[in-house]
């Protein structure tokens, strides 16, 4: 059961490899067009930046979810997942690209007053002077400190992603077992760093859009959506690769079954976290907490809120309940794609009601802005993943636990 990294079925199919650079260039063009439309038309720069942040957080949560997936496989010495770990690593390898794509958000702080973040606006602080003076957020949410923190988070993720990717690639050459042990040793501290940085990034980048609001569970909520959609993204990726002729021997229905179980579990986890956050705020009914949900229960946003309940949870929950569904790759491909769409709705619901409370979609131009930003960001990220895939086999072919994964069998 030895695998050769040079095996052609372990390489990215040429049809996909051809897409890498067109996707990157097209992505950049669409992103620029999206922001530009917002900046020069009635949509407004604030809306455009909100759309950009939505698209950015959508791709970032998926790639960070993949990072966490890789780390956790090393942490618990997982055998079943070795054949698909490289795909997660490829998503992870887009994290440094996304770090650069954060710059426009950072720049918005220095563009003008409160272009995106309200706490950046002196007028807003003046208007909310009393609340602002009585808590310590003023010291935390300042331009330069925000920028420093962003650099720390992005730095941590870049280092982690690069380390795990490079080490795994080195093992393709050397087949050293020592590297697996080394990655396992690093994965413990890495998971702690990851949890802290993701939590604070969620506070900084999404929660602080509404500076007066707070929820200690918010970071976990972002994490839950991220890991869920990362597993979905890997499922979609592996399905398409198999269509293209790669990995047909290595990834079996047993792996799809495990993806199905993980997706099912994380749908429930996401719901659990989302509901826990809602329940405490709803029950206590304190105005300083409830207004955040209030914004999401007005101006048509209530339909999006309800859609999350029924279509982000109930429908896929029932759809993935059966083992027979989880053991059919085509159905798994469908559900994974479906959840990737719902994850976008989730991120959109988190960001846009604050940026644009009055109007759910922002009119035709607003929709165009959002779609351009989203597809631009997705194109750019997928292009980055494909570009990195060209140089790397799709399987960590010399991983010492590869045989476990090839022989993996659910009971």
């Amino acid at each position, binding site marked *: 059961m030895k695998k050769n990294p040079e095996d052609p079925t372990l390489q990215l199919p040429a049809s996909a490899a051809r897409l890498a650079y067109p996707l990157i260039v097209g992505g950049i063009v669409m992103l620029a067009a999206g922001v530009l439309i917002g900046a020069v038309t009635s949509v407004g720069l604030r809306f455009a930046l909100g759309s950009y942040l939505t698209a950015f957080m959508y791709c970032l949560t998926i790639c960070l979810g993949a990072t966490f997936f890789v780390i956790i496989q090393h942490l618990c010495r997982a055998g079943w997942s070795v054949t698909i770990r490289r795909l997660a690593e490829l998503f992870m390898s887009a994290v440094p690209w996304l770090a650069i794509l954060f710059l426009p958000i950072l720049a918005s702080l220095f563009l003008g007053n409160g272009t995106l973040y309200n706490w950046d606006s002196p007028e807003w602080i003046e208007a909310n002077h009393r609340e602002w003076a009585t808590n310590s957020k003023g010291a935390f949410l300042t331009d330069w400190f925000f920028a420093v923190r962003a650099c720390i988070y992005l730095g941590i993720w870049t280092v982690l992603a690069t380390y795990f990717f490079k080490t795994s690639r080195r093992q393709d050459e050397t087949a050293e077992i020592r590297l697996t042990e080394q990655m396992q040793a690093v994965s413990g501290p890495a998971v702690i760093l990851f949890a802290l940085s993701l939590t604070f990034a969620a506070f900084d980048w999404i929660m602080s859009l509404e500076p007066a609001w707070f929820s200690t569970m918010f970071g976990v909520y972002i994490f839950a959506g991220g890991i869920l959609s990362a597993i979905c993204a890997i499922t979609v990726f592996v399905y398409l690769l198999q269509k293209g002729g790669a990995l047909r021997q290595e990834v079996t229905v047993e792996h799809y079954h495990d993806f199905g179980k993980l997706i099912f579990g994380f749908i429930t986890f996401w719901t659990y976290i989302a*509901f826990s956050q*809602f*329940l405490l705020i*709803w*029950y206590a*009914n304190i105005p300083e907490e409830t207004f955040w949900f209030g914004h999401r229960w007005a101006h048509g946003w209530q339909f999006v809120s309800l859609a999350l309940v029924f279509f982000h949870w109930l429908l896929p929950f029932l759809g993935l*309940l*059966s*083992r027979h569904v989880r053991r059919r790759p085509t159905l798994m491909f469908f559900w994974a794609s479906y959840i990737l769409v719902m994850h976008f709705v989730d991120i959109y619901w988190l960001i846009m009601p604050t940026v644009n409370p009055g109007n759910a979609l922002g009119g035709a131009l607003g929709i165009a802005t959002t779609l351009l930003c989203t597809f631009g960001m997705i194109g750019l990220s997928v292009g980055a993943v494909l570009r990195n895939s060209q140089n790397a086999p799709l399987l960590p072919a010399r991983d010492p636990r590869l045989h476990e994964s090839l022989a993996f*069998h659910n*009971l």
Partner: protein
Amino acid sequence: MSAENAKHIHGYMAEFTSVDALLAACRRVRDAGYTKTDAYTPFPVHGIDEALGIKPTALPWIALGGGLTGTITAISMQIWMNGINYPYIISGKPYISLPAFIPVTFELTILLASFGAFFGMLILNKLPRFSNPLFTNSRFDGATDDKFFLYIAADDPRFKADGVKRLLTDAGGGAIDAVMDDESSDKLPRAFVTIAGVLAMLSIVPLLIAARMRVTNSSSPRFHIFYDMDFSPAKDAQKSTTLFADGRAMRTDVPGTVIHSGSEFGPDYYSGIDVDALAKIDPARAERLVRFNGQLPQDGEPTGNPPVTPPADEPVTPPADEPVTPPADEPVTPPADEPVTPPADEPVTPPADEPVTPPADEPVTPPADEPVTPPADEPVTPPADEPVAATAETPAAPAVVDTTPWLTENPLEVTRATLEKGQTQFNIYCAVCHGQNGRGRGLVNERAQKIQATSWVPPSSMHQPQLYDDKYPDGKLFSTISNGIRKMPGYSSQIKAADRWAIVAYVRALQLSQNASEEDVPLSARDAIVPAP
């Protein structure tokens, strides 16, 4: 083994030394059409169910059924309990409030799904089972060590001893043995039955004791399991203690104690009494009010304050007045005990709801349900203070109609804001008993009437003439709100003085609303009045 009697044979088992040999044999046996088969291995073997042709289990459906049962039970239980059978507002949520029901629903769904999976597994596997005919074969012990066994049961429709033996041999099985029915008795050992029976009977004893306790009386104290909850070292109000030299369990305020933010207004504002006027009539009481610097001496009109008043006044009191006074605040209850009182020497007649009342000789013990401690310097507590401080006036009031010089005007400027404040506070604190319209039909009262609570004293209606400001000055109303009356507790600790005055203003507005004429309506608004049909 040699005496193979067909009807005693339970089946045949064959031994294998490797997983692969076992799996191959399983497939052959399956393909030969046998269905009553089983395999025994020291560890789980992937794919053996498929090799044996075992049909998918029904267990997932049982678990799903359990889960759905849990969901439906939990939701309907909560809707029934909180929405229908005992509608009760909790935390301001609707009776049927789905988000609040979800945690319980979630828990019960998980619990019953787990029960379904666990007990369903036991039942489908016919467990627990204490013995198996295979155990009679000592070779079978290897199934827990390094041997693998394939078994074909004799009740398989295709079972024929020779055919099965040949098949197992062809499939590579070594040591093919017939498994004989276990001949030993399947009866439980007698000692076991006896002990279990005795234990079962003994276990009824505690139940019987408990059942007997429930229908009999006993003079011995209750059996205490948790002492800490039954015997708290904390003292109730008005109880004595040996800990302090003066024997009081409750400490009085340190002399000179000033109410928080109390110094900005005078004592009039906090007592509802014109202290200057009081000083002329009752210097001692006025002095006490002033010494607390505006703090309402806990009992607005100091409990038995004028030790002189009641006895002295009573003879004077023309009985004629009496009936008038009590109704003043209490339409229903008081007349019964109060009018009776004066003729006799009052101390004898405590009101019905006053359990502890040997007034004369017990200076320290005011009513048990009176949360407020009387001022320390009040040596003698005359009977008058029985039904909560404020009532002191009512019975004692008779002829004198209450000598206290109550403030007759609300010290607050009565503006729209004041009235709205008063309305808010009234609806929060007062309306639960007195009703939002002040007619004494609040929810608490309705419920107490419904369950016929014996200790319930119905709250007064604000619309009886005795409570209008000519008979019941603003200051007195304020004092009643602050200190309570009869069953009503004082609210001075919960409602700020300014808000209590706002409530007074609002109550006046409520009273006016029931007696208003068209002239009271501003000209500009008269057009809006729709004549009553």
